[in-house]
């Protein structure tokens, strides 16, 4: 435990770097995936292409992507941007499918009735479709958040600093405590972010629980 205390600056710093890579990827994936999913919803060919590409993308090993991206992006091999872009792509691959299915699952009657009451396209999207798809998108975001936080660590293998650095260093030095600290810190981060997302969901979508409970009874 003395090791943890004497290295607290290192651990806090790596945690911050971990978050700095994960958070923008998670947020970006949401901001890109939701419009893409919605825009392709009524265009079957485009939707198939989008979902197909996502599946293929997700199948590419992360380490390979980290190594290939500098060539594609023109970035340096140690540039954290590579990791950020790769993480965003993976997160999007998950998010796009979730969002697309969430929009597709909205009751047609609700959409029809919203149109009949005089919602314009944009109003219908903001006031009806987003709130309807919201709970499912939020559930997807929780998966993406957990998976992204764990994927960040792989970047340590190509020298991009994160909590994963504690694994690579601990492994190289045969120092189990350091690896354990890395694992615990990653899990704590994942739980904290999950609770945060859940809290945001509860605050912005108070109806979600009620609708689910009613659905369970019906």
């Amino acid at each position: 435990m003395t090791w943890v205390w004497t290295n607290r600056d290192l651990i806090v710093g790596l945690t911050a770097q971990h978050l700095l890579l994960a958070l923008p990827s998670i947020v970006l994936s949401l901001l890109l995936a939701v419009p893409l999913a919605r825009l392709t919803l009524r265009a079957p060919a485009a939707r198939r292409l989008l979902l197909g590409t996502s599946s293929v993308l997700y199948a590419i090993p992360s380490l390979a992507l980290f190594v290939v991206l500098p060539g594609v992006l023109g970035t340096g091999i140690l540039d954290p941007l590579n990791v950020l872009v790769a993480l965003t792509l993976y997160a999007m691959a998950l998010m796009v499918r979730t969002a697309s299915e969430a929009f597709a699952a909205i009751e047609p009657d609700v959409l029809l009735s919203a149109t009949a009451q005089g919602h314009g396209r944009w109003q219908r999207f903001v006031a009806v479709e987003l709130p309807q798809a919201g709970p499912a998108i939020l559930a997807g975001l929780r998966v993406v958040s957990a998976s992204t936080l764990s994927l960040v660590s792989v970047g340590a293998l190509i020298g991009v600093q994160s909590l994963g650095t504690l694994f690579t260093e601990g492994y190289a030095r045969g120092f189990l405590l350091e690896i354990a600290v890395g694992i615990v810190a990653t899990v704590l981060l994942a739980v904290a972010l999950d609770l945060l997302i859940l809290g945001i969901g509860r605050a912005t979508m108070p109806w979600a629980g009620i609708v689910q409970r009613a659905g369970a009874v019906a």
Partner: protein
Amino acid sequence: MIEFDHVSKHYDDGTLAVDDFSLTVPSHSCTVLLGSSGCGKTTLLRMVNRMVDPTAGRVLIDGEDVASLEPVALRRRIGYVMQHAGLLPHRTIVDNVATVPRLRGRRGPDERRRALELMELVGLPASMARRYPSQLSGGQQQRVGVARALAADPNILLMDEPFGAVDPVVRQELQQELLRIQSELAKTIIFVTHDVDEAVLLGDEVLVLGEGARVEQRGAGADILLEPVNDFVREFVGGTRRRLHVEHRDGVPTVVDAAGAITGRLVEQ
């Protein structure tokens, strides 16, 4: 007043949903379009608020061609009730009722009070204002649907089988409520249904529609029941079920239809 002036609706796949249909719906009256599913009655209804545009002909509201009106603005001044209420599941009842005022950017204590008044008008207790649609029964949801349609105080109400998905007892309640509301508010209503009894009860005028929204018969509900003009209408309004005679069973005068099924008992008025 709503006028359908020789409207037709062709779809690209070749189906002819509506074939040269004309009708004048007088203001403050309830006109029922009665027909089986697929006869084009819903298509006609949706031509009024431009959810469907006719491929030929015009629809006029008070002499104004709806094709010249902006669809979203048009829909906000026409009440629309559909079979499954289509309430917004994520909004409370009072907010659902106030949908159209909200769309017009008006939300405040006045709108809220007006929404509560409308809930009272359709027979919903104010205690339901803060509930969500999933916490209401089907019949209650339909009441909310009617209140929502009335929220912008529209002159016109379009009702697409609004009571088709609730059980018979609740349906009769809702029909009576509609009659009461109509006697107070006197809206111009187009009401679509496949239920003959409902059409006769609610319609100042009833149109029996065949394929492609061809008008098989139009007139007062009683005339359609008693004097069907052709076999199609005769069968549609019930066929053998409407041809009744009295038999004495165990000394009791019993009403029996042409197929021999008992429909009721003859009683002294």
